[in-house]
């Protein structure tokens, strides 16, 4: 049975998606996931989310997918042990060393490799499975055939996002440091935890510098109108039956950094769509087309607002440093 996992960017969102039919919720830990603190949960909220989910027979995945500092790893392990003790059934992890430490200490928990692992082929998946991964999350841009090949390479859960970009292009997330090149700060909190501004890999927001207007020039001649560097992923549905037939085990609704009402409505539509597929040999998904189109528009509107806010931060920080 495929698991539908939805985001809990806030405690309210976490409870909402569980109420709306998600099988599991994933929540980021402040300072330990690839988002800013406003889209992560503190320990009280995580414990509350776990209790709420367990009371309803549902699961919680805790996102600890930063690429940490070496010196943070003991703190990382302590955190994971704490959340597992509270009842979290799985963890999303990017760092191979952290992954091995978790599997050595907590062999019963599910380890999901994160997008930070930058998987591009089925041999990557074999490597990660042998290291102890229970699920591998695939990048947004793989075709159904590529997923089928990966599934055939070995026994491991396949997790895909319910949004995607066209094939090709710059590999993001997983192989990109453009944000921190322009704007980056690091500081320690009172517990000795590293915090970073400007690097999603290290536990902040990606500042979306790819989405500003860039002039592309060759030998000093601009030959395009100003352009963004990367395309953005969009919600998808049409190929979902093929994905499930290819062996996808876990569907991941995106949106930790979106509004609760938008994520709620996305979960509602996908819950119905997944149930329709599971109940029929020839599911008719056309009934969801108009709803999905509206959700795509709302998604883009919220993304644009967020991108503008983050870009402003990147520009301000970059200018502050340049003036210092």
């Amino acid at each position, binding site marked *: 049975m495929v698991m539908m996992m939805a985001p809990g960017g806030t405690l309210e969102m976490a409870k909402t998606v569980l109420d709306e039919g998600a099988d599991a919720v994933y929540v980021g830990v402040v300072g330990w996931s690839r988002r800013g603190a406003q889209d992560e949960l503190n320990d009280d909220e995580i414990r509350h989310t776990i209790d709420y989910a367990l009371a309803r027979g549902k699961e919680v995945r805790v996102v600890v997918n930063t*690429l940490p500092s*070496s010196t943070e790893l003991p703190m990382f392990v302590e955190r994971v042990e704490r959340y597992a003790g509270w009842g979290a059934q799985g963890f999303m992890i990017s760092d191979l*060393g952290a992954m091995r430490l978790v599997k050595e200490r907590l062999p019963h928990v599910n380890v999901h490799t994160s997008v930070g692992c930058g998987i591009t082929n089925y041999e990557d998946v074999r490597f990660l499975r042998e290291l102890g991964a229970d699920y591998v999350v695939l990048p947004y841009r793989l075709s159904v055939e*590529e997923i089928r090949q990966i599934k055939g390479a070995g026994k491991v859960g396949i997790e895909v996002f319910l949004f995607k970009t066209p094939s090709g292009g710059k590999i993001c997330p997983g192989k990109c*440091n453009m944000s921190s090149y322009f704007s980056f*700060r690091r500081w320690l909190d009172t517990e000795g935890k590293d915090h970073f501004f400007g690097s999603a890999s*290290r536990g902040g927001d990606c500042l979306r510098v790819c989405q*500003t207007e*860039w002039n*592309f020039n060759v030998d000093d001649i601009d030959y395009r109108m100003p352009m963004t560097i990367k395309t953005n992923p969009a919600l998808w549905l049409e190929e979902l039956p093929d994905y499930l037939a290819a062996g996808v085990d876990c569907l991941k609704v995106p949106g930790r950094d979106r509004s609760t009402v938008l994520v709620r409505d996305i979960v509602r539509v996908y819950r119905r769509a997944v149930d329709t597929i599971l109940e029929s040999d020839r599911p008719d998904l056309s009934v969801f087309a108009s709803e999905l189109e509206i959700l795509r528009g709302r998604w883009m509107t919220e993304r644009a607002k967020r991108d503008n806010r983050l870009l402003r931060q990147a520009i301000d920080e970059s200018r502050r440093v340049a003036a210092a």
Partner: protein
Amino acid sequence: MFELSTDVGNLKELREGDFSAYDAIYLGDFSCPEYPNNFSSHAELLEAGLQHVHANGQKAYLRLYAVPGNDDLDWVGDVIDTALQLPFDALEVHNLGVLRMLRERGCTAPIHLGVFGNLYTHETAKVLKDHGVTRVYPNPELSLDEVRYIAEHADIEVLVPVHGKIPLVISETCFILEHSEEGAEGGCGEGSCSYQCTQEHWLKRGRDDGSRADWSLKDTGRMTLSGKDLCMVEHGERLAGMGLKHFYVHNKGEAPGYAAAVGHIYRDALARAFAGEAAGDFAPALDTLAGLAREGLCNGYYFEGAGQRYIGRDR
């Protein structure tokens, strides 16, 4: 005492360039299999490249394609099979799947992890060491202190880039081709490459008056690099004092002559630092390096700030 290395994409560049300042050469362009006669994707050229480097008394490391999809694994496997028959001093991987392929083929040569291997912690270095990796190129986001920590706590060689542009993002397809007029006629990897990357392509944001941009990036098609050149020539003493020994000059995307000019400056600066000699005046070297860096110099993330900052003499 120390090792200084750089990269060379193909045999023509290897034969025509002056790489005498270097102890070792990374052969191949790991980002783009379409790059003309790229060692990383042309098994038939490996022996000639290897012989040339060894004849000069240098070590030869082969770079393997960094981001192979499922469909690339067969030809990557062919390159590996050829390479394993030759006395390469090391093979460089950026991809866990390719590392696994090397292990399955019984590779006994040292393996280096490349810049896109996402190496952030000593525990990950230990995992990779168990798979035959002897040297790691830490992610550019790490500070010098973090790099040293990994070297000491994983007991592994670390490659420390000291000069040149910083690889920031890699791509599965060619950004230049996709945004050119010809791009509409054929996709990247379909035999339609016209090698427009031989011209310099820049992405810039900010001032439109022809002066240095607020933000700049250099694009080589399948890889985006920092606009500024990482420069650590003023910090050789510190690097030596930290026990770091393997240094690297990034050459991909630069004009002929760049590696030679930069290499001789660093050979001299590092030799002095490791001998404990006074560093002398860096001004002439910095002037030369700044002249080669169209968008200026930076220190990357070594001193815990944004990658494009420079600490040292005002550049």
